[in-house]
């Protein structure tokens, strides 16, 4: 039973892998270099129906139409930037899975660097404060230590 369910899982996962990207091989461009470029561009475009998938991963009709547009424009010799701008022009910044750097996204993009710097500062201060320069014992303390350790 266990082996059967493992097999079923493996088949399901393999099927899922195949189901990704284009639904229909006829969608693909005949030129494999261009097709690779179109897939890379599509992977950065949000499917506006499913919203958390790229148009390459989604099987929504709108994603299919947008994949077609990307391939037409790649075949027509448009640059990646031109195609992304064409999409952004129609659907806004939201269609980019990775938003462009701007004032409103600065905190988002700079957060890893900020977190690293803050962590380094905290770590530096923590190690520095732990190094305590030893103060010599006072006469009273020395006498108590001697009494406690049995030395006379």
């Amino acid at each position, binding site marked *: 039973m266990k082996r059967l369910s493992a097999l079923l899982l493996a088949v399901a996962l393999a099927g899922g892998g195949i189901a990704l990207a284009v639904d229909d091989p006829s969608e693909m461009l005949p030129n494999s270099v261009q097709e690779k470029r179109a897939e890379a561009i599509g992977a950065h475009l949000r499917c506006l129906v499913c919203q958390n998938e790229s148009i390459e991963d989604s099987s929504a009709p709108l994603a299919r*139409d947008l994949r077609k547009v990307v391939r037409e424009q790649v075949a027509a010799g448009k640059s990646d930037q031109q195609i992304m701008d064409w999409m952004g022009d129609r659907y806004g910044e939201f269609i980019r899975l990775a938003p462009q750097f701007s004032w409103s996204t600065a905190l988002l993009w700079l957060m890893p660097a900020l977190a690293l710097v803050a962590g380094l500062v905290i770590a530096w201060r923590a190690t520095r404060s732990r190094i305590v320069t030893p103060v010599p014992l006072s006469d009273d303390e020395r006498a108590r230590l001697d009494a406690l350790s049995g030395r006379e």
Partner: protein
Amino acid sequence: MNATRRGLLTALPIVGAGVLGVGFWKMLQGMESGGFDPRAIKNPNVGRPIPEFAMPGLPGLGDGFTDKELKAETRPVLVNFFASWCIPCVQEMPGLRSISRNMPIWGIAYEDKPENASAFVQRDGTPYARVASDRHGRVAIDWGVTGVPESFLVAPGGRILWHGSAALDPQIYDAEIRPRLAGL
């Protein structure tokens, strides 16, 4: 460590968590009252002129229309993307018929077989002054349409004044569209 530093270090995470909590509470409240929709897509075409297009008509419903004809209108026009396969579009038809008594509505059939779209529009009386067919959804992409129904208020001259992605009814017309007509 002195008392003020200890106090500050204790207060910072509490204040941070508090600010986050208030933020999340406001978002949830907005989602409940309808003021905030995390899935809403802001259409960048609002405020811009309509894109260029030319579409054929539907069988029995006259010729289609072009961006030039829409721009040449002297009254504001409500442009409505619909499809016979879309359930909210079926639901909004009575609302559209009532709105069509106040202003012209031009319909665009989105990714629909022309004969199906034509039969759907004519079944209970068409609300549309003109209808065109966007058979493969390419015109809709230029308008930034992500699904049906979606509607656009177009001013004379062709500037888009408003965009809505819900099924229209007289309440939305009174709240969103009528106030914008007053300024024209």
